[in-house]
């Protein structure tokens, strides 16, 4: 987790809003941002799993991290989906708004907020917290957000693939 925010030069992140809070993912993992597509619901999935969408012929899972983190969506928001490609997975994340591309350097981090201050288990996919003037931005690990306890699907699927 530490190497995530130990870099000499600045790293670029894409910032987006979920409800009133700001989050970011590494810009290099972002494939593209698309308008909220039509999705098909997937049975047997937790409620934050919105469904599957068609991205120019590719079928991609879409998740709503707001409902996972119990963040109230903005009423007047213009939904978009950020397509993230990381660790062999391609996943769409529903966001309220796409805000900016942010240069983050080491001095922007608030390390004391990341590991110890987090309530137990709850923010396991927040890999860092960074402060830019009066903005507080949580850095997310999307793959981790999908492999949490309530979605132990990866392990099941790898078992099936090996068979």
């Amino acid at each position, binding site marked *: 987790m530490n190497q995530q925010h130990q870099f000499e030069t600045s790293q670029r992140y894409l910032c987006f809003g979920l409800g009133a809070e700001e989050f970011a993912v590494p810009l290099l993992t972002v494939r593209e941002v698309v308008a909220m597509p*039509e*999705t*098909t*619901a*997937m*049975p*047997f*999935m937790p409620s934050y*799993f919105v469904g*599957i*969408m*068609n991205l*120019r*012929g*590719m*079928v*991609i*899972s879409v998740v709503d991290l707001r409902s996972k983190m119990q963040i109230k969506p903005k009423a007047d928001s213009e939904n978009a989906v950020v397509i993230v490609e990381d660790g*062999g*997975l*391609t*996943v769409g994340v529903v966001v309220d708004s796409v805000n900016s591309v942010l240069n983050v350097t080491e001095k922007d981090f608030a390390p004391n907020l990341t590991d110890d201050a987090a309530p137990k288990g709850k923010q396991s996919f927040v890999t860092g917290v960074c402060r830019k003037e009066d903005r507080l931005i949580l850095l997310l690990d999307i793959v981790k957000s*999908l*492999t949490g306890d309530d*979605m132990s*699907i*990866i*392990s*099941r*699927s*790898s*078992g*099936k*693939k090996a068979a």
Partner: protein
Amino acid sequence: MDDFEKEIKQGFLEEATELLSGTEQCFLTLERDPSNKGEIEKLFRLAHNLKGSAKAVGFDELGAFTHELETFLLKFKNGTFELTAASVTVLLECNDHVNVMVAGLKENLEAKFDSTALIAKIQAYVPDASAAMVASTETPEAAPAAVEGPSAADIAAIEAAAHGGDVPAPVSNVVEMHPAPAAAAHTAPAEDKKPAAKGKPAAAPDEQIRVSLQRVEKLINYVGEMVILQTVLRAQPAVIENGFLRKTVHQLGKVTKEVQDLSMSLRMVPLKQTFQKMQRIVRDTSAALNKPVEIEIIGDHVEVDKTVLEQLGDPLVHLVRNAVDHGIENDQVKRVDAGKDPKGHIWLKAYHQSGFLVIEVKDDGGGLDAQKLRNKAIEKGIITASKVLSDKECHHLIFAPGFSTKTEVTEVSGRGVGMDVVRTNIESMQGEVEIHTELGKGTTFKVILPLTLAIIDGMIVRSDEDRFVIPISHVRESLRPPPGTVKSTKELGEILLLRGESLPLLRLSSLLGRKPKQPKNVDDMIAVVTSVGDRPFSVLVDDIIGQHEVVIKQLGDEIRGIRGFAGTAILGDGRPSLILELSELAKTRGVA
């Protein structure tokens, strides 16, 4: 090792695999026709090329061995040695060794190999049967089988031949593209007739390019999207009203369809290589069992989806080996008495039939004896003595796990695993195996497979607002239940009385763990009867929307583990819908 070195080494290995793909066939042709100068010239050139490139990129061991092989081949080329079955066996062994080295290097560029035994053997080789035997006893670990009968090395060779093609496949995962199907129809003998090609080694690759399967799949994805966009465009009022636009869009649709067909055909590869491997299996198995058998191959130009081909190798090996071992009679006198050629014959035939690929493995052996099979199955505890079976059902007993007619386990067969593998693999590809047999005349195994695993014929059904795809091959029939045929029970749920049958009736919405939004009367719904598994059952859907060919898309890794879904398909409006595996769904819901 720097990247550049790695790259040229990997490049060489790709090239080597391509060069080696035809060598086994050359050796086997030579065995049948030792005077064929063209083949030996070809092999000599190949060995020479391989030696040169291997040394150039720094694979010294491979270079050293191919150098010895080249020297060895030169003696045959000059006529110093004569080609015999025994010498072909040694040459095939060398061929296997080169293949093993190339495959090993592919996995690990630093891999080391011990070729000393084989080098010693070819250096000491004298084309005389007794001398060959001396040579083989000197190097027992790599002894040829032809003189010693069945041995472990022999089986290893068969295994190696069977898996030789499978090892590099996952590494490269590449489809061979043929500019035209006609190019694939070129068989080895046809090329021999062109001695003019002398000195121009391996001219063929110029007309082919190697493309990664991943890129082909991407292309197919985009083309699929194009088809959908074209459909959307055609439905626009502006297009319908404007004659010129309408005509153009219509043309565009035609072209799009062509492009789609073409892109799908890129996944297709000829069966040739897999079939050639079978020749080797027959040769080695028949030598190991000391039973003369000949194989005839028909239709090796037939093309099949790359994924199907990969899964087809193992079942075919088992079927062919089974035909040599069990199909053909052990007693040659018996064959002569029955008016047959003492030499066994096996036919391997491939053809397309009504949208399916059919592969037949036919032998002219003794045929299957239903009564004997039945007795054996009772003896092995696979069925009970009281069970009534038709002849056809008896024949299918050979697919049961643990079933074997052999009393003793030999290297070639007897563990009762092979045929089970055949059935499991074929069924996992949505295919089936038919057995046609006649006592005293022979047996034909008919493997029927879909041409591709990428497209299925699907029935599109609706449950509430959602649409789902059910593979047509899983649907036996669909009907609107006539009034009074659905009985409701507390214990067993709803039961559909269909002609003589009583089938469990499940609602699709509850199978998917949902509550129907607008509960409907059974009379307004449609029951789909599935034909998968031993116990048919029926599923209630709101409506059947249609029947289409759909392209299967895999679900992402994050959700692939959910059982009951074979993947997704993008329907005409561009939205993905799930492809249902009804029996699996019913199983996971604990209702069937």
